[in-house]
């Protein structure tokens, strides 16, 4: 039954099959008014059905005699593309950047999870600021979308991090661009940084799903957006969900949507996740929330944890990065390299 593979609703497919249309060829050879009469639907609906059919078959007819199918890329072309245009968003911590191969890469979905207080939101805000660093300073000059589900984004903290960033950029330009060149290089004010972060606050899981779908229209209108940060993708899915099967389906749909966004628009998608306790082999250990089925949603997975008094980031899953771990610290200026005096305050 070829009709089954068309993206139509179940009732439409049922009507097509009972009217005797079981192959694509038989549908495409009829006119819309004829189809409308046969299926007893409105002519608009018949037109829509025919459009779906012709979209699918057009793909077949236009495939050239080359060895590559429509819509595919050979691995060699992808490698050339990657080697020449790969962009990374720096995390401002040299150790972390080196294990990530330069930083958070665009076109991929990176999931970052950890216990509360380890610095996930700090890292999210740092990335939202760092994506805006202009080309001249080694950044990618883009804008950021910050989707906040927990209400943990603080504009004052973002301002503080932006001030530190623009201070660093000014110092860099002073040291490396001496002479008349220094005047031409643009410096960004902290206010400009905040202006380029698009902030969305979602309060329920339906809003979250709606927003993920809306991004498909929003991003083409704002072509400079290079990173989408979802602060705590888990928050609305952990409580009030009676139907677990529904949750898995919904999460699966969201995951595919986000991956499509990353691939289609070349943006980096960063998901911040919480942790839960898992019981296996007679012991309890910490694992990322949302279950094993969610582990498929991201390209790379980074787990943040405490090691003694220092914060560490560990690459848990990645198709191309080596499994490694790096220390980092959270300072008043944002995320920076770890040094011995930035430790966790001991509670007595």
């Amino acid at each position: 039954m070829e009709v089954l593979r068309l993206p139509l609703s179940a009732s439409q497919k049922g009507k097509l099959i009972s009217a005797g249309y079981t192959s694509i060829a038989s549908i495409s050879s009829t006119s819309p008014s004829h189809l409308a009469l046969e299926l007893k639907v409105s002519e608009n609906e018949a037109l829509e059905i025919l459009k779906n059919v012709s979209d699918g078959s057009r793909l077949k007819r236009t495939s050239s005699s080359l060895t590559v199918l429509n819509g595919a890329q050979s691995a060699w072309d992808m490698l050339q593309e990657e080697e020449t245009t790969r962009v990374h968003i720096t995390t401002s911590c040299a150790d972390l950047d080196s294990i990530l191969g330069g930083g958070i890469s665009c076109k991929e979905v990176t999931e970052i999870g950890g216990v509360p207080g380890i610095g996930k939101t700090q890292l999210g805000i740092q990335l939202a600021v760092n994506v805006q660093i202009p080309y001249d300073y080694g950044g990618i000059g883009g804008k950021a979308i910050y989707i906040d589900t927990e209400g943990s984004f603080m504009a004052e903290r973002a301002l503080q991090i932006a001030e530190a960033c623009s201070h660093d950029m000014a110092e860099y330009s002073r040291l490396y661009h001496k002479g008349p060149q220094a005047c031409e290089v643009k410096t960004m004010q902290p206010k400009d940084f905040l202006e380029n972060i698009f902030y969305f606050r979602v309060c329920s899981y339906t809003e979250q799903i709606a927003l993920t779908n809306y991004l498909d229209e929003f991003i083409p209108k704002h072509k400079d957006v290079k990173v989408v940060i979802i602060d705590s993708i888990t928050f609305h899915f952990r409580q009030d969900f009676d139907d677990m099967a529904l949750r898995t389906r919904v999460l699966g749909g969201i995951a595919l949507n986000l991956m499509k966004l990353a691939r289609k628009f070349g943006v980096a998608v960063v998901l911040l996740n919480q942790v839960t306790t898992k019981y296996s082999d007679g012991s309890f250990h910490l694992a990322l929330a949302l279950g094993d089925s969610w582990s498929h949603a991201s390209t790379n997975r980074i787990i943040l944890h405490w090691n003694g008094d220092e914060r560490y980031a560990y690459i848990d899953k990645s198709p191309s990065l080596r499994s490694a771990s790096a220390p980092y610290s959270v300072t008043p200026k944002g995320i920076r390299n770890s040094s011995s005096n930035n430790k966790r305050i001991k509670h007595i």
Partner: protein
Amino acid sequence: MGALKYLTVKYASIDADFLQFCASHGIFSVEDFLVHDVYVLVASAEKLSNSDRLKQGINQLLSIIETLHQPWVNGLVLLEDREQNKHCLSTGGKSFDMLLQGGLRVGHVTEFVGPSSSGKTQICFQVASNVAMKLGSVVFIDSGNSFSPTRIKQIVTRISGSVENRVHGILQQAMRNIECHAVFDVYALLNVLHQLKSSLESQAGYKARLIVVDSISSLIAPILGGSNAQGYALMVSVGYLLKKLADRHNIAVLVSYLTFCCLLAGSI
């Protein structure tokens, strides 16, 4: 095939009289014709004046149907086919080859199942690189944004065993053999497979040796369950299509599947 009236355009012997004759027996589509007793139909056609034309029409329909179904084969033909066409493709790893008794069998769908981070994507990369380097072209269908050209380059370099700077020619050839499709829903997957099928059937030069679907579970999980009954039908049609491609066109198919434990009420 649908309604009989669409055949009037192509076949001259199926004309308006024939259609009327069929309608008088309650036959409006090819399915009805198949269900009906052909001898009874022929006998009643004899009684009418234009019996020759009608019998021509019936024979025409039977010959159309004949071309649509698979021909009957006997065991000897199958054995020959198995010895000549259905070899094993080496996976590139000795222990895997031993486990699979030679490698991935052409004509079969082999499924790798495991929890997250167990190495499924790496196996897919390894097998794809091995086949691309030694045997022929590979179609890699990636549903999780995890296809990484740099990693493939590393694997090919290691398999070829040659020095960094001399591996360029082999690398280019091997990587040109791998086509990567990014699919994000099951309809896109079905489209790609159908396109592949029609290219294999129509173009003489186009040949594929291996199809890899990295993580078919993420495409099928969102459509199963709930009030949507189509999910199971779509899943079965994907499986059927993969097996058909594997058998008819002598391709090995490798599918990876993510397992996860059932979600109980307490374990969020």
